[in-house]
């Protein structure tokens, strides 16, 4: 029982990351009809926004400390962050400690701009091109983006911890009346889940309740007609691309304390996020979210040792197995529309 509750928690948490990435991917696909292989790279760049902000906050000048020596036996150089000078050491440390949450503010404009530039500069020209071309160009872009990040930040993962206040874990078990320590879950992962839920909710609300969203939804359903109505869909689609980039970026920022970011984290998520989107049904936002959580939960259950004892290796293939079963029983994924991406 405890084990099952725990894996459901895990599944929701994993699922929220999958759903967030798949959501952005579907937004782009649904509105612009573009298969964006660079979406994982946007997620990765989001994570590196957090790394960059924490680098900016810890920008330092060096002071030679005669009392210490470095590894070669020379007097040690000690880095003193500028924020110490600006705010004093205690406040400075607190600011550095809060780098990841602060990065949210930093990442939104950065990601929007990256999204706009990408759409105007490149993607725009590919709306009418075959999907194969879209795949190749966005895949090329993804490689370029990750190689650029690798050039500046190296290949090694970069630890980007959550603020001290959010370390440790919450004991659900004790709260629910089980023995303590049986069902614990880290605070930051709970925050991630809540954050993802808010973002997903906000995107849905935005599309559901604003005129802008209405037009975009109409455009998703039938682009030509909306165009005929004299509505400037293009500008709205640019904004949607920026929004999707921001969603991916925020997913990345918040993910950094969970796993240290590295330059290939986008590629690691790419295949998975496409599987999620397709299982959900190409172009369906609720489908993407549903599939994200479904696959997250199933993956968690498949990693239980009780399950693995019976079916060794199931954890290796569960995502793909589920994808195959769903696609064979439901031709267009969970909530896909007919005729989308079937040619």
């Amino acid at each position, binding site marked *: 029982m405890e084990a099952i509750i725990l894996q459901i928690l895990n599944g929701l948490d994993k699922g929220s990351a999958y759903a967030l990435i798949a959501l952005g991917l579907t937004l782009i696909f649904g509105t612009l009809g573009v*298969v964006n292989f660079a979406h994982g790279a946007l997620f990765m760049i989001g994570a590196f926004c957090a790394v960059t902000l924490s680098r900016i906050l810890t920008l330092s000048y060096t002071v030679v400390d005669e009392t210490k020596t470095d590894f070669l036996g020379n007097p040690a150089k000690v880095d003193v962050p500028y924020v110490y000078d600006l705010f004093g050491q205690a406040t400075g440390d607190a600011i550095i400690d809060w780098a990841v949450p602060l990065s949210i503010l930093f990442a939104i404009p950065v990601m929007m701009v990256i999204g706009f530039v990408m759409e105007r500069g490149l993607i725009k020209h590919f709306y009418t091109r075959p999907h194969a071309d879209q795949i*190749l160009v966005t895949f090329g872009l*993804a490689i*370029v983006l990750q190689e650029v990040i690798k050039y500046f930040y190296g290949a090694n993962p970069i630890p980007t911890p959550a603020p001290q206040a959010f370390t440790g874990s919450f004991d659900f078990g004790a709260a629910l009346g089980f023995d303590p320590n049986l069902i614990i879950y880290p605070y930051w992962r709970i925050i991630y889940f809540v954050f993802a839920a808010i973002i997903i909710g906000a995107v849905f609300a935005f599309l559901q309740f604003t005129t802008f969203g209405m037009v975009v939804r109409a455009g998703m359903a039938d682009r030509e007609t909306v165009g005929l109505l004299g509505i400037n869909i293009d500008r709205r689609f640019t904004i949607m691309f920026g929004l999707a980039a921001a969603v991916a970026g925020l997913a990345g920022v918040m993910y950094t304390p969970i796993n240290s970011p590295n330059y290939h984290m986008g590629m690691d998520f790419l295949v998975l996020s496409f*599987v999620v989107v397709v299982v959900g049904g190409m172009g369906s936002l609720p489908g993407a979210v549903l599939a994200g959580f479904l696959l997250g939960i199933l993956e968690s259950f498949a990693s239980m040792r009780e399950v693995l004892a019976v079916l060794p290796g199931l954890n*290796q*293939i569960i995502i793909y197995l589920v994808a195959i079963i769903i*696609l*064979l029983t439901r*031709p267009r994924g969970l909530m896909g529309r007919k005729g989308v991406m079937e040619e």
Partner: protein
Amino acid sequence: MLGLEKKDFQLLLVVAGLTLLAPFILNPFPESSGMAQFNAGYPDLMQRFVIFGIFAIGFNILFGLTGYLSFGHAAFLGVGSYGAIWMMKLISLNVIPAIFMGIVVAGIFALAVGFITLRRSGIYFSILTLAFAQMSYALAYSVLTPITGGETGLQIKSTDRPLLSNLEEGEIGRANLFGMDMRASFELNVGDWLFTFNAGYYIAAIAMLASFYLAIRIFRSPFGMMLRAIKSNQTRMSYTGLNPRPHTLAAFVISGMYAGLAGGLLVAMDTQVGPERMFWTASGEVVLMTILGGVGTLIGPVLGAGAIKYMENILSKINKDVLHQWFAFLPDGLEDFVITLIYPFIGKGWHLTLGILFMLVVIYLPGGLVEGGQRLARALRGKKASDEDGPKASTEPAE
């Protein structure tokens, strides 16, 4: 000739010429010049050019003709390789049965996978094939370790005693063709040039030419026409009384067998298999080769395969010291500056160059390298014919 139209026969002749003379063509620079770094005429890379050419030709039969984008084709290459190496480990070190085994195993696997995945089309098909390939990879890496060797893969060991061989005790078996070692080479020294004619390469090259010939025949045959008809209009296809699925399945299996042939040849040239051969990036690579060269064209996939393998093997080996050697003639400050500019794109930065190349090709040459060649040819012809007409870049898709 050979049942081909004149144009196709000429193309086949050109490809045959290029392939057979590859040891010369790929080694244009004298050994002692700085440019020798760009020589690609050594056996391993030449073998890879033609083997991955086969892989891409086969992939193009499926993707180029029917429009079904398989994202898991590397699985067939991998399975073919495993089939071939087991044949060598257990039965015979001769490459023929091993390659044959690779084709058969890959064909059977493709039949099974295709039977299931071809129930869907479009991206749903792509994801289904991807799922099968990723499952194959994951299982080969982990729980199937007893069969696949897991991470370290399979090699021929001194303890392997194939049935039809008479190895000495402790001797490690080698791939051969009726006694001819795949690594046997004939070297030709001409002045400062060294040309290597490798047995393995020529076997692979003959296989490639045969595959290429077969591909032309398939492209030009009514069967190829059926496949193009499937890509063009499946509705009309079924309302014309034709069942599209078995046609597509046949193309899928043929394409899988091409991959198996490539896998078997890889093992024949270099007797080892690792599971990464089936990872999704390897499947992606063949897609990129085909698109880069020109989807649906005959020669495109071969060119694309060559371009990517060349970058992977030549560009990645240029390091800072090599650059310093090249630009040693410049004044020190300028030399360092030039090297700083170039360095991110070569050596460990070769992925960056690859990414940029993909983007440039797809932006400016939607028809891939073949279209680039056609434009170039047109431009040259246009200049010769009349200057006022001028070469006008057109964007019509490459044939």
